[in-house]
């Protein structure tokens, strides 16, 4: 596989004015509707949002170690015919710098059936203004890939942001147990 030193190249860094706010890039994987269809194929969705009371927030934090970020949790009941197929919840957590939006599908009795990342937003420093670097986000051809989260990892391989998603899922399970299990 020896192709000489040319198998990689350095991207020049543009000099930028400090006053310009850091740009945000977003990778969108799935819309809410697409995720619903993928996680509960063929089912109907009935919105079941929960606007948390302060007491509920506290109870969730106590049970899971984290307070919800959102004032209103976006939740849908998935229905297959006249039976409950499960719950579909949309949530967000902080990634390295910005929000990661994700969806969790629960079975009717509250077991995790799947987790899908919907949108991954990150704020970058100056390097993003390099046009060649920015191109990476456009996805102009199939197969275009971007290694975003390359490697803030510890020895067990857990990235900090993925731990935040795991914590978020735990919080959603507490939300289910406290507010949906008897709904």
């Amino acid at each position: 596989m020896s192709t000489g030193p040319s198998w990689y190249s350095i991207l020049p860094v543009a000099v930028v004015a400090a006053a310009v706010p850091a740009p945000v890039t977003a990778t969108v994987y799935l819309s809410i509707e697409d995720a619903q269809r993928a996680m509960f194929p063929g089912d109907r969705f009935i919105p079941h949002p929960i606007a948390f009371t302060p007491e509920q927030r506290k109870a969730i934090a106590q049970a899971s170690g984290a307070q919800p970020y959102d004032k209103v949790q976006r939740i849908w009941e998935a229905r297959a015919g006249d039976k409950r197929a499960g719950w579909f919840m949309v949530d967000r957590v902080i990634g390295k710098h910005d929000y990661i939006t994700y969806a969790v599908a629960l079975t009717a009795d509250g077991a995790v059936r799947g987790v899908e990342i919907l949108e991954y937003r990150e704020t970058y420093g100056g390097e993003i203004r390099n046009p060649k670097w920015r191109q990476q986000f456009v996805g102009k051809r199939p197969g275009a890939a971007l290694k975003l989260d390359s490697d803030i990892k510890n020895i067990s391989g857990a990235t900090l942001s993925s731990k935040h998603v795991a914590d978020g899922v735990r919080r959603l399970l507490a939300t289910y147990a406290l507010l949906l299990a008897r709904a």
Partner: protein
Amino acid sequence: MRRCRPLLGTFVEIECDHAQAMEQGFAAIERVHRLMSAHKPDSELSRINRFAHLRPVAVSAETFEVLERALRWSRLSNGAFDAVHAGNAALGRGLIPRHADQPLPRAAHWTWLEVQGACVRLLKPACLDLGGIAKGYAVDVAVAAMKQAGAAHGLVNAGGDLRAFGVGTSPVTIVDPGSRCGGVAHVELRDAALATSAGLPAECGLSFDHLAGIHPGWVSVTVRASNACDADALTKIVWALGHRSAHLLAASGAEAFAIRADGSLEAIGEQALAA
């Protein structure tokens, strides 16, 4: 199509325009996750850590293969790659849990691990961590599953261990995670694997001293190899051995470079000698 799920303690992204193949790819990774998670008490890895010092623990073909590969890299690198040492360190730092009936490790390195006929034995209590190789392996089995399901091309990225297959090239950007210096490299990947291992910026309150013998002045190491398992293991070996890893890279047809703290790149291996 591009999907992303939290698996293997990171984000796994699969890109493929064959929906069924993509599901097969994720299913393969979920299986590796179940088998080799140090966090789940009933994973095969945890059962090794809990019981293999008492009696041989039978494991699946997948776990067997990862352990064989891990031992091979330990032998070749003279212990620079060491799942036993890594596990002890991770346990000591509280990064992985010690399960209820799991003994305190007494073995310091890989020579206390024996893999034979799909059975695993520990000659002394030890705590294996496969974080340094299982992600790459998971990427490889996902690619195999996707090909078998009929995908002509695709890309699997498990938090920086990635592999592209089929026609066409995939542009990959390697970001320096500390990214104040803007050290950024670009690779066009075609039918090959790439793995990056980075240090952690000190301001996160974390250090990267877990990477034994870390090369001063480097912020990340990137290896290109034919498969992701080898690329993953080799990043750790390059970190530990620096330019002394050249013969190991060459022997497996792999190549590497480091991003330095000032954002410049440093070739490692044969190209460095040729330059």
